[in-house]
């Protein structure tokens, strides 16, 4: 019997539920923590950003109109998918972050647990962030959290999986659609997790994962008028400039964390508050 040929994997983008190469046809080399070649990865262009934002905008109303319980189930299924392919994720985390097998597997475990944690929050976040307001009249007055819309996430540079999950799952949990730019130097765990989202019943376009140059794509995301929120976690050095671009198009911004309590920080980051009046019934 002849020897098998290698079946090498092409790492692609995730846009609108499909896995295209970059529109520009460009790729770049990803190295592991020791500097050895790992893979060629798609280098997204500004047009890929445009397509991803368009897909996210189109998908967001459907995601938000699903029941909170249903959104929780979908996120939980995403966690199940990640758990069942934990070995594959751990291998990529180990290569990217230079961890040994045990530490990498533990990191994947924490990432999956974090996803489950956010899955649980979908039908509880309204009770925590919303409330009934006292008013002087025969009315009920409620404040309800609603999603900002399309959130662009510049994923953390170093924490290739745990940090990515935290930054992406939180805005999803409250009903946003996400365009995530994976860590430029450590993108593979995020790309893998994106692939798993396709088997988790996440509607196409709700999560979009781009890989490429932060310097090139972050300003495009920040200045895009149809992006409603911007998580700057992955760009601490350029946060000020990007926030200025975002301000010009009235985009909600989450700055990189510099200490303090983190537990609900991301859940609070990309919601708006809507207030509803309702007459008191008989």
């Amino acid at each position, binding site marked *: 019997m002849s020897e098998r040929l290698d079946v090498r994997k092409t790492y692609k983008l995730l846009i609108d539920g499909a896995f295209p190469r970059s529109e520009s046809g460009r790729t770049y080399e990803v190295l592991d923590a020791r500097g050895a070649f790992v893979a060629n990865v798609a280098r997204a262009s500004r047009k890929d950003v445009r397509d991803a934002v368009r897909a996210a*905008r189109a998908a967001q109303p459907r995601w938000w109109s699903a029941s909170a319980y249903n959104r929780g189930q979908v996120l939980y299924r995403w966690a199940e998918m990640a758990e069942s392919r934990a070995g594959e994720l751990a291998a990529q985390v180990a290569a990217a972050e230079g961890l040994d097998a045990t530490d990498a597997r533990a990191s994947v475990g924490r990432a999956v647990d974090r996803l489950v944690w956010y899955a649980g929050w979908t039908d509880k976040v309204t009770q925590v962030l919303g409330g009934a307001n006292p008013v002087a009249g025969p009315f009920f007055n409620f404040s309800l959290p609603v999603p900002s819309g399309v959130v662009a996430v510049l994923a953390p540079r170093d924490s290739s999986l745990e940090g990515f999950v935290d930054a992406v799952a939180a805005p999803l949990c409250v009903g946003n659609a996400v365009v995530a730019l994976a860590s430029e130097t450590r993108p593979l765990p995020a790309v893998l997790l994106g692939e798993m989202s396709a088997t988790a019943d996440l509607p196409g376009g709700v999560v979009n994962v781009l890989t490429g140059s932060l310097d090139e794509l972050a300003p*495009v995301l920040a*200045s895009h*008028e*149809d992006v409603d929120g911007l998580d700057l976690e992955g760009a601490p050095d350029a946060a000020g400039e990007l926030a200025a671009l975002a301000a010009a198009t009235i985009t909600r911004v989450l700055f990189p964390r510099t200490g303090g309590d983190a537990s609900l920080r991301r859940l609070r980051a990309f919601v708006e508050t809507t207030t509803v009046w309702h007459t008191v019934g008989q």
Partner: protein
Amino acid sequence: MSTTTLPTTGARVRLTAGAGVPVVETEGQLRSILASLSGVDAVGAEARAARLATRSIKRTTKRAALDLAISMVDLTTLEGADTPGRVSSLCAKAWRPDASDPSTPSAAAVCVYPDLVAHARERLAGSSVKVAAVATAFPSGRASLAVKLADVRDALDAGADEIDMVIDRGAFLSGRLGQVFDEVVAVKALCGDAHLKVILETGELVTYDNVRRASWLAMLGGADFIKTSTGKVGVSATPTVALVMLEAARDFAESTGRLVGVKVAGGIRRAKDALRYLVIVNETAGSAWLTPDLFRFGASSLLNDLLLQRLAQRRGVYVRPDEFSGD
């Protein structure tokens, strides 16, 4: 326009170049002219349309093309649920597509059902925007000639500048070419100075050969424009169909000296598609056709995408799709 050199073609029509539009008096004459048209190389036409779609239009050319495309839009609403209010907002939009930028050109026309023509006319008084009405038992074209002519007369009396008539595809496909031709001639006679656009409904004509023959039939009958589709059947305008019709218009101009316009309608939603059509116009019929007098887009949502792209060019960032009103 007349100064532009028309491209040389391989038109194999038994007409003397520049001899004027031939007088067609019998169905036999019509048949012999249509039979003399060569068949369309379907594979070649599709390949050419696909190749032209890959042309890249950038920067100043793109800006100019977007403005040109906006000025070619027949802003259309042809729904059973149309109301005077909806037509009012459509008229306002056609007149001043982008209120924040007065340099934006107006659309070419609004296209409505005959009963709403008077309302549109009133709303567009003082503007350059034309009022077009679909008539002749739109969209199927299945009524007696008397009913069709009454429909056209109604629209003209209400003040329509342009009439979009549909041909009877049933008659065309069953070979009653004389009947289709006579209807076009009769409607054109009634129209007088009003522009007549003849809708071929290419999605129902089955073959490109039929599209070419129907184009010639309509042009011989006196059409000022030939139009692809009603937008009411599954298959609407395609680049290849536009290519075939533009070739017909070019060949017709070459052999008769009369320039007939082409309107593509139905399913064109993106600015990118519109620019691709402009490339096909330029490369097929020639730059003489790059004017609202000779090329139109029948569309509704296309205008918004053109405006968005125009705004994106101006601002240098990607813009919100809800920057412009839905209708």
